[in-house]
């Protein structure tokens, strides 16, 4: 039990009053001679016993009355939720909420924050309940509630800011929850942060707090003079086939000029640097033309050399994964392959030609290998994330079995029918393939892709409304009934509703089955300029369906898909950890995910928003203090910080003292009645 007005308990000594009164006014039985004693009934002694009992009851009721009144004035409460508002007592606790996002590394911001945290801890009485929360993108309870402030101080000494972005809303919610649960009638939730403006990418909503919980804001660090950071990077195929461009976007934040250079490294080896030339504004681009990597998984890292206020975000601001080509195995038509001869030799025609042309048009983004299909095995196929089968019915049973196993193991298969039998396509697509539908161009009977279920790459084909790539025409297509029971579904269809593209998930893999051969006699799609980007997007889409993404920001979680089959993770600092211990990416760099059968590189970058150190103004920061609201938050919540409804409802806590007064009143009534019926 805690008390609001502890000093009132000193009045408990007033209980001696009724006792003294009782003793002083107590009447001992008078001795009286009575010759007619015989007429007193047997009840006489009992009446005296009852009299004594009533007197004792009277005494206890008076003592209880005094006690209840004293307690009522002392205003006890049993948990923090009962504590009344606005009382100055020793029952106060603190929740420290420390910002450890990347921006806190700027200058001496973190040291200042640590000092302010220590000072805040000193402001609460010893043995008060305290807790420590650290936050960046997520909030974590670093030190649960304790009355040992030394534990919090020890943790403050150890923790350091990281590289993650800032979610101030999550910090507020975590602080409010901790404050509500703190075992003290009043709780100060002290949020120490640089209060980056970028931390409020979304407006902060009010949070529910119990009466007695207040937010305090401590802003640390100074407004940066200037900060330079690499905002983005990408690789672009260069005009020359063996070159590629690395384009870096450099942003300048804060006030002041910055001079310096940008250096590019490939697998740790410098590829040179270029000076920063600021045009008007805060943005500039730097381009490096480098040799196209011959191997996969080449790490490109850009580093800015400039004297600014936040060097931590510059050292390895963006880690580039090589925008490597997606390896694709094209199972070209055999048997009925048509070749044309030329002085340079035989060259494929028909579907092969269109695909080859499209692959060339994709530049280095699609690295195609060609195979006739003979002698292929699942292991052979698994080297490629995507297999394009231009005419599956041309392949033998072994090849088809290998293709089927490849899909089961997670491969992505893109099927195009040939001109011959379609039984293999039927089997691989899991659908029922009917006959051909031949349309007559002269009669303007052609089919357009009228609806696409998928978004993203397949949407390039167009759907209802505007089409990015126009409306391809189709003159001949297979009638296909998607085998729903086999996991097949129509993802694109013609204007008459006939399927154009089927999607089937089989095992860990994915199958896209087209109902139109890649021939000019069947469709003009292969002749359109949109075919190449479509092919690339399709391949990329198929690849992403089976492989996890490889770009992350600090703080992102390591997904189960990414870590499937991975045994070890090599961290950016060179240490190797078991994969099950890596659940999120805590620092920027390249992570090597390895196992016996595969290896994957993942690049993790600092959230570029952390480089913008612009801070909230004082009015906005003051508004954060008022976000703690008792009771229900309105439906609209707070859409904007300055518009937050921060009215505090009346204090509805601390009712226990009222119950005590009511009990005292009842005891007083009982005492009065008893006193009137008790002889003195």
């Amino acid at each position, binding site marked *: 039990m805690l008390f609001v007005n502890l000093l009132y308990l000193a009045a408990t000594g007033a209980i001696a009053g009724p006792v003294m009164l009782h003793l002083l006014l107590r009447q*001992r039985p008078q*001795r009286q001679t*009575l010759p007619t004693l*015989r007429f*007193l009934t047997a009840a*006489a002694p009992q*009446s005296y016993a009852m009299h004594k009992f009533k007197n004792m009851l009277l005494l206890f009721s008076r003592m209880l009355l005094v006690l209840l009144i004293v307690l009522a004035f002392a205003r006890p409460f049993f948990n923090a939720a009962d504590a009344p508002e606005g009382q100055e007592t020793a029952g106060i606790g603190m929740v420290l909420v420390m910002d450890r996002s990347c921006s806190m590394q700027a200058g001496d911001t973190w040291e200042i924050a640590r000092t302010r945290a220590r000072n805040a801890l000193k402001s609460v009485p010893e043995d008060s309940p305290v807790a420590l929360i650290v936050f960046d993108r997520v909030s974590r309870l670093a030190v649960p509630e304790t009355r040992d402030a030394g534990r919090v101080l020890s943790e403050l000494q150890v923790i350091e800011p990281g590289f993650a972005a800032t979610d101030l809303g999550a910090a507020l919610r975590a602080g409010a929850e901790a404050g509500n649960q703190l075992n003290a009638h009043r709780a100060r939730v002290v949020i120490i942060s640089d209060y980056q403006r970028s931390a409020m990418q979304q407006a902060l909503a009010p949070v529910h707090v119990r009466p007695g919980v207040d937010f305090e804001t401590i802003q640390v660090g100074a407004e940066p003079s200037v900060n330079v950071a690499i905002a983005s990077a990408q690789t672009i195929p260069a005009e020359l086939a063996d070159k590629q461009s690395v384009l870096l976007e450099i942003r300048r934040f804060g006030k002041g000029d910055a001079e310096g250079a940008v250096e590019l490294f490939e697998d740790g080896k410098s590829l040179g640097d270029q000076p920063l030339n600021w045009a008007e504004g805060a943005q500039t681009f730097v381009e490096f033309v480098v040799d196209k990597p011959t191997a996969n998984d080449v790490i490109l890292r850009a580093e800015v050399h400039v004297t600014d206020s936040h060097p931590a975000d510059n050292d390895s601001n963006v880690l580039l994964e090589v925008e490597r080509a997606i390896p694709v195995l094209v199972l070209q038509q055999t048997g009925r392959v048509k070749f044309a001869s030329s002085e340079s030799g035989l060259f494929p025609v028909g579907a092969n030609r269109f695909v080859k042309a499209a692959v060339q048009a994709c530049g280095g983004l699609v690295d195609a290998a060609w195979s006739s299909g003979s002698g292929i095995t699942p292991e052979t196929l698994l080297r490629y994330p995507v297999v394009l089968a231009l005419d599956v019915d041309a392949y033998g049973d072994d090849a088809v079995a290998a293709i089927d196993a490849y899909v089961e193991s997670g491969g992505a298969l893109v099927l195009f029918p040939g001109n011959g039998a379609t039984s293999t396509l039927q089997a691989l697509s899991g659908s029922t393939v009917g006959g051909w539908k031949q349309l007559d161009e002269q009669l303007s009977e052609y089919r357009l892709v009228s609806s696409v279920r998928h978004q993203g790459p397949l949407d390039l084909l167009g759907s209802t409304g505007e089409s990015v790539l126009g409306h391809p025409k189709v003159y001949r297509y297979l009638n296909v009934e998607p085998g729903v029971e086999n996991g097949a579904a129509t993802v694109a269809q013609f204007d008459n509703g006939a399927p154009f593209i089927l999607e089937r998930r089989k095992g860990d893999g994915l199958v896209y089955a087209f109902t139109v051969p890649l021939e000019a006699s069947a469709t003009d799609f292969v002749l359109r300029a949109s075919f190449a980007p479509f092919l690339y997007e399709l391949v990329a889409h198929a690849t992403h369906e089976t492989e996890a993404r490889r770009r992350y920001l600090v703080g992102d979680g390591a997904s189960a898909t990414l870590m499937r089959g991975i045994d070890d993770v090599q961290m950016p600092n060179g240490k190797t950890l078991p994969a099950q211990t890596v659940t999120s990416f805590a620092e920027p760099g390249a992570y090597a995910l390895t196992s016996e059968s595969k290896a994957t590189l993942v690049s993790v970058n600092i959230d570029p928003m952390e480089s913008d150190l612009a801070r909230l103004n004082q009015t906005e920061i003051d508004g954060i203090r008022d976000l703690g609201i008792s009771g229900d938050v309105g439906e609209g919540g707070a859409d904007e910080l300055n518009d937050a409804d921060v009215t505090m409802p009346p204090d509805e806590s601390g009712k226990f003292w009222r119950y005590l007064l009511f009990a005292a009143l009842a005891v007083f009534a009982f005492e009065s009645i008893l006193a009137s019926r008790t*002889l003195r």
Partner: protein
Amino acid sequence: MPTSTQRFLKPELLAQLSSMEFRVRTIVEGMLSGLHRSPYRGLSSEFAEYRDYQPGDEPTRIDWKVFARSDKYYIKEFEEETNLETHIVLDASASMGFGTGTYTKWQYAGILSASLAYIMQRQSDAIGLVVLDEAIRVEMETKTTRGHLIHTIGAMENTKPQRQTRLAAVLHQVAAKIKRRGVVLLLSDLLDEPSEVMSALEHLQHRGHQVNVFHVLDTAELNFDFEGPHLFIDPETNQQTLAIPDVVRGDYLKSLQGFLDFYSNELGKRNMRYSLVDTSLPLDQPLFSFLMRNS
């Protein structure tokens, strides 16, 4: 110890009683001329009745005036006055020593007794005294002289109530001792077994006495107007009882009333005079009330 006969004889009271006489309702024997009628016809100045002459009657008793008028012989009968023997029986048990007012029951009874004795003696009635508790403590024969009155009152005053009550048993002894019919004035609180006391009183009445009972009780005994917790003690048995008067008063008064009603009814049935005497009342009230009823 009383040293003066003036203690039980209150001059102011006697002055009030100067014109009062005590007349006995019933006919009692008397040796001397006194205030009370004798059953015997004899020399007297008060005409009683005429009767026919019987051979052997004295000729001097013939009313010759009536003969002259009627030529018949009639004898004139006259009332004969005789003296009364009054036995004052005083209860001197310890309970009679209780009192919360000016007088204890013993003192009050003593004053009443002395006053009555005075009146008797003045009427030339003989008075006797029996003081009893668990036995007859004082026994004085009946005499009419003034000196005997003084000795009698002195004996009362020299007695101190202190022993237990055996009223019924001792009354039987008194009944056996008193030979001549007379008046018995019993002054007691009657705190003995009521049925046994009644039996003793009946014994006295059977012996020809006119029994008059003064039931002397203190006002506190009658009203039980105590306040606060009390430890009540019986002066004769030393029995103690803790009680809250306000709580037990109702039951006590009910029991007491039953006790008083018993004596009132039983004595009344037997033609014995019953007077409940509250010692808080002025002394003349019970005396006047008693004498007026007997006049």
